[in-house]
């Protein structure tokens, strides 16, 4: 969080338009530095999800420049972007998106499936990740046997198993009750403490206020960027 830290995400005059003249992002300038814990907050329709998609290379901007971990997105092919996502970026979604008939361990191991790691190593690292999120005893369970909070923790484990430079979470507590939600936020704070850069998209100011930096969005623009002192 110091100015000498390198930027993991750099957005320069980024815009994103969809057919039918829908402008999801307008003129975004944003830097996110290594080790930061950032909330992107705003009402629905403010462009937060599009922002996450662009940061996560799931979507290309219509205008402007995007740099992720030093790579210029415009110069990378689709295959190279996929490789970037496989090794440098982790995602956590509101609705978990776990594979139904598959054990928790294998769900997390899938996080390394496209990174070229062998089966045994994938499972070993998955087990370590699950220990880190506190689910070491649920390795063989299937997702339907888990509570909402446990499912999200599994999804987080899957996101961090490849030790990504950037973790992007889209409304991670949106589908959870307040207690599980708190647990998940605590986990994210812990992960950030050991050095993971985390960006959390949320529409809840309660959630956003727990994070040291809050970027506010409205109608596709960044309208505020507050770094709380002493948090």
């Amino acid at each position, binding site marked *: 969080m110091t100015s000498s830290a390198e930027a993991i995400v750099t957005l320069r005059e980024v815009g994103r338009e969809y057919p039918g003249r829908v402008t999801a992002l307008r003129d975004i300038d944003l830097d996110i530095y290594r080790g930061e814990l950032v909330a992107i907050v705003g009402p629905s329709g403010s462009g937060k*999800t*599009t922002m996450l*998609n662009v940061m*996560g290379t*799931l*979507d290309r901007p219509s205008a402007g420049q995007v740099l992720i971990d030093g790579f210029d997105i415009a110069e990378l092919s*689709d*295959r190279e972007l*996929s*490789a*970037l*996502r*496989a*090794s440098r970026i982790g*995602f956590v*979604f*509101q*609705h978990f*998106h776990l*594979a*139904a*008939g*598959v054990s928790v361990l294998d769900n997390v191991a*899938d*996080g390394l*499936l*496209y*990174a070229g790691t062998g089966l045994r190593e994938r499972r070993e690292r998955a087990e370590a990740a699950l220990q880190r999120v506190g689910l070491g005893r649920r390795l063989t369970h299937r997702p339907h046997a888990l509570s909402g909070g446990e499912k999200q923790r599994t999804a987080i484990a*899957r996101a961090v198993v490849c030790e990504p430079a950037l973790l992007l979470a*889209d*409304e991670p507590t*949106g589908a959870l009750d307040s207690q599980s939600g708190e647990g998940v936020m605590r986990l994210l704070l812990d992960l950030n403490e050991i050095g993971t850069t985390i960006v959390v998209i949320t529409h809840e100011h309660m959630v956003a206020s727990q994070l040291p930096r809050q970027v506010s969005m409205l109608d596709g623009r960044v309208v505020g960027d507050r770094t709380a002192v002493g948090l």
Partner: protein
Amino acid sequence: MLRLAAYGLRARPLRVVLSALGIAIGIAAMVAVVGTSTSSRAKLDRQLAALGTNLLTVAPGQTLFGEKATLPDQSVAMISRVGPVESVAAIGQLPDAKVYRTNKIPAPQSGGIGTYAVRTDLLNTVGGTVASGTWLNAATAQYPAVVLGAATAEHLGITAASANMQIWLGGRWFTVVGILDPVPLAPELDLGALIGWPAAQRYLGLDADITTVYTRTDPDTVEAVRELLARTANPAQPNEVDVSRPSDALAAQAAAETTFTGLLLGLGAVALLVGGIGVANTMVISVLERRAEIGLRRSLGATRRHIRIQFLTESLLLSVLGGGAGILLGAGATAGYATLQDWPTVVPTWVMAGGITATLIIGGVAGLYPAIRAARVSPTEALAAT
């Protein structure tokens, strides 16, 4: 990738079964059709091998005037002098010696049974076997003893030969000393009553004309001998002689079946096509349902190619499951039917290999479009929070 495909299928077992069923039925039908026809052909081949294909039948045809011709008396001797000929046996029909069960039956009801005077080496030559009693020998050929063909015995209601069993033949009693099994190579004998040549002369006062000569030759020279037999049997009028090879008739049966087999194979292919459509349908629906999974995998770093391969592999696996089940079903049906018909069970490897190849092709083609569709799913749309 195979593991991934297997997981994908395991999620919906009933759907997998129903989709694979179409292919299974198509393949099973094709395997069963080819299997049963091959098995029946194998049975026929065994039969022919046991009976031998080297039997030639020489019979008088018709004269130029359309009358029934006869073979000259020396024909037997002449034929046996042909080098490759191994054995010769002649029979002479006795059209006036009618056969009845007892002497109380009115004359016209002779039941279509033919009486033949035969030599004792006939049975060996035509490859016949005795069902009950014994064949004629040098002694019984001189006495009023008769051996009945299988159909004759059934006709007359006689089930076993014995010293007490007698029939009314040519106006006198003959003892039934033997009953034959059906003779595949000389079916005319099945509806025959066979008596020794000397007996015919002595008791019926008939000197039979030779009506058919059976001859076995060296198997390698059958066709060559066949050419000469007409001239050998009746040098004066070779065109009045008919030479035939009875095993040809049996072989012809097999040939007739091939057209039928072809038709059934065609039907099986249609079933296979329909099965393939079923697989394609399943895969298309699967892709639609799993948009979120596709979006997730893209976020985990899967390329479009990874997604394509995943769904294509699933489609192939689905088809192979159907194909494998189909082969087992088809082979099982073949085994069951063949055993019922007393044939050996033969399922040619080529049909099984062909079946697997066909399923792989069908699976590949059926899964191609869905796989391409899957790869084109936009991750952002797929993952949009509902």
